[in-house]
């Protein structure tokens, strides 16, 4: 009986063990994965505990008890006839049948139990654990782990700051040891770069970054400071670590210096801070010519792509479009800011945006031009970098250009397009006269009448300048009373020539040519307020021209009247003299209205004729100038240092205080050059710094310093110089002989 119970107990224990094993496998797999990823043992242990706890709650390995085991065995072994629970009961309480059954089961159980294994997912958990480990291993192998391990990275041996005592001779104590060093670069927020922490002390960071150093020593120190070329900043002690942070403004060099409690000072190598600039975005426009022109009939849309890239992310991009209307002085500009069809993803480093501009939608008409460029800004703070593309032009061709000559000087274009000048009229009239024989009488008369109309239009136009809207003067007819006049004329003509005239004219002559406005049948009486107003409309009071001009213009108008009269009478020959006179008058008016701009230029002083070419030189003085120009030698200390090093090497001499100050000066000169080109001269600068602080040095080091210094010196030029030549009597004799025999 006890034996049977033992079997069940063992089975239960086995079950529990398997579950615990499963939990362990899961936890182990995860822990190793974590270790691979973080290379940190603490994380791995934490992960192990966490996963164990989690899996334990899921698997509950403590749960299976002896009852559960018996029911499980019952369910899985038919031969036991669901009677294992009998074994758990004390035999005293059992019925005889039950006891019999118990006896039977005891025997079978020991055999059956070997075939039954407790329920488990051991294989599955094994696979999971192995695959987790494999993933971790692969990630480690392919350096994917770097992503997880920025926080703690072991110090690279090469990066360890080496400190040297400034005076090695009286060094009693051991150099305090550097336990930990780190440099954290906090990039500006907009760059979206994570702060990077490293043990390398050379800094390459974008403008505006903040860098912070952290040094930990094994010993208490007096002061720790960071030395710049001209400044020294003390580092603060915080939790046993010396820290200092700095906002980056420009490239420079620095080194650490510390002094221990005993007063010994130590300095480190020189490190470079290289500040990179946040570049402005680059904007490229593609898919469009720099200058595009559309016909009026074209479908007027422009489509283009813009490629915008930036090194740390874009902020915004838009199109600045300018529409220009009109030409010359009457040009008008309208500026608009357009956005792209596809919206810009803020912070993206590279974007390809497209835009379709419909010129019609921009309210552009023939002759108008559109200038546009793309402007983009990046995320840099406080002042973003802004850059713009080249300007592109889109124009709609204007087929109807005004070329107008006569009134060019008046400044304002007030003439209608169909306007004919007086000169043109004269030419046409002469042409008509010439063609008299060839044309039919009807055609001739028709053309003559047309010319008459043109003459009238010209007269009315000039009349406008006179302000003679209501010309009351005798014989002067203006636009407004034209109808009356013509009606009158027609009236006159009715008697004999009404049909004739009607046959040759169609009603051009009225300003209401196309019956757009209902003709005024009656003219209202004059404005009653007229007497009280200062009216420019009055020809006499118009102030547009001065008096003489006005009279001239009036005369010209009178001539035009006569010219028109004869043209209307189909006698162009008679009208010609009037036209010529009108032209001369108009020419006069134009010339008088012309403005002359005074030329700007050299205005020579008046020549005094009495002194000119007299040849007297009393007032001319000899001129003396005195100037001292230094032949500037670049890098004098570097030059001296090169020779001094050569001497030290050759004579095995000791570096003196004076040499040290020379090397320091040479170092300062070199630093200027090194800032421009740190890669080339940093090493030399470091060594020079060491040499100027520490007298101990090796021959090789001196040679490398000399090498670096020589490299820094620009090549000099070949210049004239005084040279030596010994001369004695024999030389002179020889020269004399040579000369004689020359």
């Amino acid at each position, binding site marked *: 009986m006890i034996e049977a119970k033992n079997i069940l107990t063992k089975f239960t224990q086995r079950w529990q063990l398997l579950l615990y094993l499963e939990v362990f496998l899961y936890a182990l797999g995860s822990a190793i994965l974590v270790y691979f990823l973080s290379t940190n043992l603490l994380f791995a242990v934490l992960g192990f505990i966490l996963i164990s706890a989690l899996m334990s709650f899921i698997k509950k390995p403590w749960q299976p008890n002896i009852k559960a085991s018996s029911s499980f065995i019952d369910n899985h072994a038919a031969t036991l006839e669901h009677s294992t629970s009998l074994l758990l009961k004390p035999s005293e309480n059992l019925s005889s049948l039950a006891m019999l059954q118990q006896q039977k089961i005891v025997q079978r159980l020991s055999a059956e139990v070997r075939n039954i294994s407790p329920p488990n997912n051991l294989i599955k958990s094994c696979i999971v654990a192995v695959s987790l480990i494999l993933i971790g291993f692969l990630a480690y192998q392919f350096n994917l782990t770097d992503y997880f391990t920025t926080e703690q990275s072991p110090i690279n041996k090469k990066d360890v700051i080496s400190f040297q005592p400034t005076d090695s001779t009286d060094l009693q104590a051991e150099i305090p040891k550097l336990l930990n060093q780190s440099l954290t670069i906090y990039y500006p927020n907009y760059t979206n770069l994570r702060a990077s922490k490293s043990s390398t002390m050379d800094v390459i960071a974008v403008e505006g970054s903040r860098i912070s150093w952290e040094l930990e020593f094994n010993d208490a120190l007096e002061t720790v400071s960071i030395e710049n070329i001209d400044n020294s900043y003390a580092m603060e002690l915080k939790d046993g670590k010396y820290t200092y942070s700095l906002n980056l403004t420009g490239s420079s060099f620095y080194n650490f210096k510390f002094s221990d409690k005993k007063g010994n000072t130590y300095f480190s190598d020189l490190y470079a801070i290289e500040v990179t600039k946040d570049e402005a975005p680059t904007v490229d426009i593609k898919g469009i010519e720099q200058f595009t022109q559309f016909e009026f009939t074209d479908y007027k849309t422009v489509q283009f792509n813009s490629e915008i890239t930036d090194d740390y992310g874009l902020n915004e991009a838009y199109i600045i479009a300018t529409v220009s209307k009109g030409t010359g002085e009457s040009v008008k500009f309208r500026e608009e800011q357009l956005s792209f069809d596809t919206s810009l993803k803020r912070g993206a480093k590279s974007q390809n945006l497209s835009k379709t501009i419909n010129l019609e939608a921009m309210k552009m008409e023939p002759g108008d031009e559109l200038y546009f460029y793309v402007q983009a800004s990046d995320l840099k703070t406080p002042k973003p970098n802004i850059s713009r593309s080249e300007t592109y032009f889109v124009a709609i061709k204007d087929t109807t250009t005004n070329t107008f000559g006569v009134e060019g000087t008046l400044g304002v274009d007030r003439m209608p397009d169909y306007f004919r000048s007086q000169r043109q009229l004269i030419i046409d009239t002469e042409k008509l006269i010439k063609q008299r024989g060839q044309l039919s009488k009807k055609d001739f008369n028709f053309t003559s009448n047309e010319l008459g109309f043109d003459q009238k239009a010209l007269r009315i136009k000039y009349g406008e300048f006179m302000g003679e809207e209501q010309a009351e003067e005798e014989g002067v007819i203006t636009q407004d009373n034209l109808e009356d006049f013509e009606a009158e004329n027609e009236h006159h003509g009715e008697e004999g020539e009404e049909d004739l005239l009607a046959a040759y004219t169609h009603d051009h002559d009225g300003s209401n040519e196309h019956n757009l406005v209902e003709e005024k049948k009656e003219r209202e009486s004059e404005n009653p307020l007229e007497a009280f107003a200062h009216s420019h409309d009055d020809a006499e009071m118009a102030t547009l021209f001065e008096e003489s001009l006005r009279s001239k213009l009036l005369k010209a108008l009178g001539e035009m009247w006569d010219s028109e009269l004869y043209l209307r009478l189909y006698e162009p020959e008679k009208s010609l003299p009037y036209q010529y006179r009108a032209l001369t008058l108009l020419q006069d008016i134009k010339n008088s209205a012309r403005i002359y701009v005074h030329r700007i230029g050299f205005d020579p002083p008046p020549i005094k004729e009495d002194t000119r070419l007299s040849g007297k*030189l009393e007032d*001319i*003085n*000899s*001129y*003396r*100038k*005195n*100037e*001292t*120009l*230094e*032949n500037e030698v670049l890098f004098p200390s570097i*030059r001296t240092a*090169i*020779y001094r090093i*050569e*001497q030290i090497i*050759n*004579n095995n001499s000791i570096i003196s205080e004076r040499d040290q100050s020379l090397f320091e000066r040479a170092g300062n000169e070199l630093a200027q050059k090194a800032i421009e080109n740190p890669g080339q001269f940093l090493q030399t600068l470091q060594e020079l710094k060491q040499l100027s602080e520490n007298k101990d040095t090796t021959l090789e080091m001196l*040679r*490398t310093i*000399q*090498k670096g*210094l*020589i*490299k820094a*010196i*620009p*090549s*000099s*030029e*070949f*210049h*004239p*110089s*005084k*040279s*030596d*030549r*010994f*001369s*004695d*009597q*024999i030389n*002179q004799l020889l*020269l004399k002989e*040579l*000369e004689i025999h*020359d």
Partner: protein
Amino acid sequence: MIDSLSFINNHWFWYVVIFAILLWLVFAWKEWQQPNKSKLYLKLVLASVALTSLAFIVLKPLVVSQLDTYKMVVLTKGYDVNKLDSIKNSNKKIQVLNYEVNESFINPNKKPSTIYILGEGIAPFDFYQLDSLNVSYLGNPKASGIVQLKFDQEQVVGNTINIEGLYANAKKGRKIILESPANTGLDSIVFSTDSTQPFKLSTQLNVIGNYEYHLIEKDSLNNLINSNPIGIRVVPESDLSILIINGFPTFETKYLKNYLAEKGHQLTVRSQVTRGKFKYEYFNLNTKTAVDFSEKTLQNFDLVIIDAQSFRNLGRNQKSSLEKAVRNDGLGVFIQSNTVFNGIVNYLTDFNVQADNITKINMEAWPKIGFTKSPLHLKPNFTLQSIFEVNNQILTASKTLGQGKIGLSAFENTYQLILNGNDKVYQTLWSETINAISKKQIPIVHWETSSSVIFKDEPLKFKLRTQIDKPKSLSEQNDLIPLINDLNNSHLWKGKTYPKTTGWQKLSLAQDTTQVFRYYVTDTTKWKSLKSYNTTKANKRQFSTAKAVTNKQFTTRQPLSLVWFYLVFILSIGYLWLEPKL
């Protein structure tokens, strides 16, 4: 026979002779007194014989005797074993000796009749040991490496040093690299064929000081074969004092003036404004000297640059004082050509020019840069010293007049070089011209050595020229070095010293210790091929093979053994003693 007879106690000769004759006369007189005169003559003869023997015993006669003859082979570095074997074959008894520098190897009492030298030869300073010996130089080793070297040890800063040499039996791919003191390569040459080739390396010298440069030989695999040091001394440039005279302002002068003034030279410029009125410009000068062309003011200048027109218009007195300044003080005069250099300037000296209708040329050194010139060039002449030539046509040249020089150039509008950005070419053009023409400073002492490489512990022969009476030279250790005055030239002195350490050393003058000569001393382990080549050359010269090899017999004077004289004396005296007794 008489010639071959001499005596050890030669100085007693006449005393002995007189004494012997007197003695004989005494003897003769004594014998004459003797009654028996039968053997008188025999006795007299015997007496003279005995006395002569006695005299010889006192005088100790020497006779010339022939020495034993033997031959000798001296083996020096790089000897040919085959040659030695063939010599040994023909002369079985020949003596073989290995030569060591600075050791005596000839026994003066047992001189060999013939000496054969094999290998590179013996050091020139050991030649004295072979004086009057019959020497045949049979060595002619195949030299390999740098065997000739030429460079100017002292250079002005900014100058380009040219190191020229000859590389014997170069292998293809072998390189010579000129390295700076800091071991950076400055210039190099790679030999493309296996042959003896000249080479030229150059570099610009930027920093003042005494430096040790190296000539490195590497094979085609960049393995170092040899590294030999050369000493180069870079000295600061010294400023010139220049007078520029112009009839009217020109761009040429303007740019030249700017260039020279910026380089710190003392410059006085006089350009004519109008008749009798001038514009004077003084650069880097504290005292303004009047430009009056007097001999005294001209002494202050090293160079006068004058345009041809102003040169012609100089007054008679001005011309004569200018000529005197050139002849006596060594003043340089450069005549600027104005647009067309018409005619010949034949004051002071005459240049012959030839028209050639070429106004644009390119120079070999700068093939891409065009130069403008007057359509003429200078006709070559014995006394004409060319400064720049193109296609063998002299464009810039100078002529010596007394101590000074007159220069002329066909180049025109050189300022265009500056405008085109070729500043360096402009500077080179003018620097070389000015350096060639301007007044040379006469040093107090002028030192010179004949060798380009000076070795430690080997004699350094130097010459010095000075006006100082009886100069005394001091070595680095301030020891006096004796000087020998040249027989014909009283200003020339010669000396010899033995540098004790390597590196930069100096010689100085006792009278004026500022007058220092610095030289670079190389270790004897360096420059082997050069040294060996020079030794071979010196040996060849010294023991020229044209000298017929004769078996010269060596004789010596040895004292005759006196035994015979004693014997003759005893016999003759014995007879004279015995004869009366008999």
